[in-house]
């Protein structure tokens, strides 16, 4: 007698194939929608793309030539098709300010944000998850209160204020950390010329090149902004972990594990944690995605040449190709992270497969 309704292997393969197909289709539609949005924004804003290239004093012939070169005489749908085609080939247009391809510029700025966001998220997870678990397993105790208060501070204190105080104390007064920027200026040049840049992330590249002096310097610069952003992400992650963990610890299967005589660490970190991971993955992905947009305030205070300051500067300069290109990249990062967290979700939750 078989009363488990589990699909056999062949139908399981078919189901996975079907899922990949639908997900691929969703991905394509999402990215197209993203491009359509940036395309339309580019057409709607009251900035004449031709004028911003040729300048105010151009002749009518110059103006028309550029207009033709940009394909602006074509019908709108065709312009969009060209835009999509270019984007697929990695061409997001040229920056008005620098005349450089937008994608190349972003490729220089994005690693700074990626490095900062990753380190911050790592900190947020490594501290936030155990803190949340600690609080959930001892509700109402001093440990719980401490986690709650520290988390609340992370929510309520303005980041720029914390950043300024941090710089003042740890850099200005104590000299424990590097100041603004990703490296001391002395190292800046050396990094450009003596280090093979595999990723654009200074910590990784210097490590791969064995330049530990430079690694240490880069670390002293990133530790404060990463700690700051990590603190905010830790506040969020610890609070969510606490609430997810409390919920799981009230479930019947936890009693089952205890009835079996399992020690408490195993009940919490194996039985409950594997269930907590299911919603927690989404939370972590969200907070990571939020940081990957490039947090403008932090990047400004710490003179961090990341995506957030790139887009903001472009916006102030009315450099539309750069703004829209940056937006496309941010959107694509969101989509990619979403996919990644979907995949991880399936890994940890058999019911979602």
């Amino acid at each position, binding site marked *: 007698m078989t*009363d*488990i309704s589990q699909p056999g292997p062949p139908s399981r393969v078919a189901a996975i194939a079907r899922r990949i197909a639908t997900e691929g289709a969703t991905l394509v539609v999402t990215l197209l929608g993203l491009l359509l949005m940036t395309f339309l924004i580019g057409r709607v804003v009251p900035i004449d793309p031709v004028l911003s290239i040729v300048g105010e004093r151009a002749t009518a012939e110059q103006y028309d030539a550029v207009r033709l070169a940009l394909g602006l005489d074509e019908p709108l749908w065709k312009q969009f098709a060209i835009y999509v085609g270019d984007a697929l080939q990695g061409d997001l247009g040229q920056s008005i300010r620098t005349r450089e391809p937008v994608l190349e510029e972003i490729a220089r700025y994005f690693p700074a944000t990626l490095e900062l966001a990753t380190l911050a998220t790592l900190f947020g997870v490594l501290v936030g998850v155990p803190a949340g678990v600690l609080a959930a397993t001892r509700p109402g105790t001093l440990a719980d209160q401490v986690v709650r208060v520290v988390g609340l501070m992370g929510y309520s204190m303005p980041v720029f204020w914390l950043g300024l105080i941090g710089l003042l104390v740890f850099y200005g007064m104590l000299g424990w950390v590097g100041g603004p920027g990703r490296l001391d200026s002395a190292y800046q040049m050396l990094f450009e010329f003596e280090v093979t840049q595999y990723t654009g992330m200074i910590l990784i590249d210097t490590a791969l090149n064995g330049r530990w002096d430079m690694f240490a310097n880069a670390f002293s610069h990133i530790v404060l902004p990463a700690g700051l952003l990590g603190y905010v992400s830790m506040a969020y992650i610890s609070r969510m972990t606490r609430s997810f963990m409390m919920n799981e610890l009230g479930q019947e*299967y936890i*009693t*089952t594990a205890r009835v079996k*005589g399992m020690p408490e660490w195993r009940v919490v970190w194996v039985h409950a944690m594997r269930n907590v991971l299911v919603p927690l993955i989404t939370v972590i992905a969200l907070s990571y995605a939020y940081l990957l947009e490039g947090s403008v305030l932090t990047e400004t205070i710490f003179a961090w040449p990341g995506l957030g300051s790139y887009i903001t500067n472009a916006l102030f300069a009315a450099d539309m190709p750069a703004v829209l290109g940056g937006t496309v990249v941010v959107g694509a990062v969101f989509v990619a992270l979403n996919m990644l967290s979907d995949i991880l979700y399936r890994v940890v939750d058999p019911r979602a497969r």
Partner: protein
Amino acid sequence: MTLLSVQNLRVTFETENGPVEAVRGVSFSLGRERLGIVGESGSGKTMTGRALLRLIRPPGRIEADAMIFDGQDLMQASERQMRGLRGRRIAMVMQDPKFSLNPVMTVGAQLTEGLRQRDRLGWDDARKRALAALEAVQIRDADRVMAAYPHELSGGMGQRVMIAMMLIPEPDLLIADEPTSALDVTVQAEVLSILDGLVRDRGMGLIFISHDLRLVARFCDRVLVMYKGRVVEELAAADLMAARHPYTRGLLNCLPRIGGARGPLPGLDRSGDWAE
């Protein structure tokens, strides 16, 4: 021989509106026999069962004059000693396998966990024992069930897995808390007969908790009738249908609604002084 002797067991929950007494001075003793606990919903059956394992979570609190299992007072035992008893010597089958099995672990991982973690068995040995346990609860495609996740099992199959899991360490006492209430009527009988056979064969003590008097009468040797955290009547199962106590009689009269709503019984005369 007495396996378990409970004197004046109380379970109290501290709530915002003052203490709630879920169990109010329950005493009984048990040999290697089958003891039924019946009573309407909320009468404290589950809390009594869990108190025996000292598994009441805060804000719940357990008190008893004594709770002696096989010569050892569980009230005096350390948490470490309790962990040694749980699973190995006292086990519990819970009501609904949908909630009582870990949804993200395979059945195999859950079945072998005790053997691997506590008894330090290797994967192969643990697996063999688990397969044998599944066969003992009449699961034929045991290999496939081992690889399945709980949501891929039917209720009946899930409860058999639960029973197999709890019986692997061959406990001396099994507490079964409404083990068939969440199952279809047709499956209930199957699961019960499996449980019955295993308890008989292995000579375990059994505490069988149910709101279904007829079931308990058939299945047990002796019955405690609980009301509002107290034992209002204790009698041999054979005498149950002839019980005189008004509450027990009331429960008997309310019987035909198996699987129906299980709130406090509406048609019950609560005017006696037992009902305070």
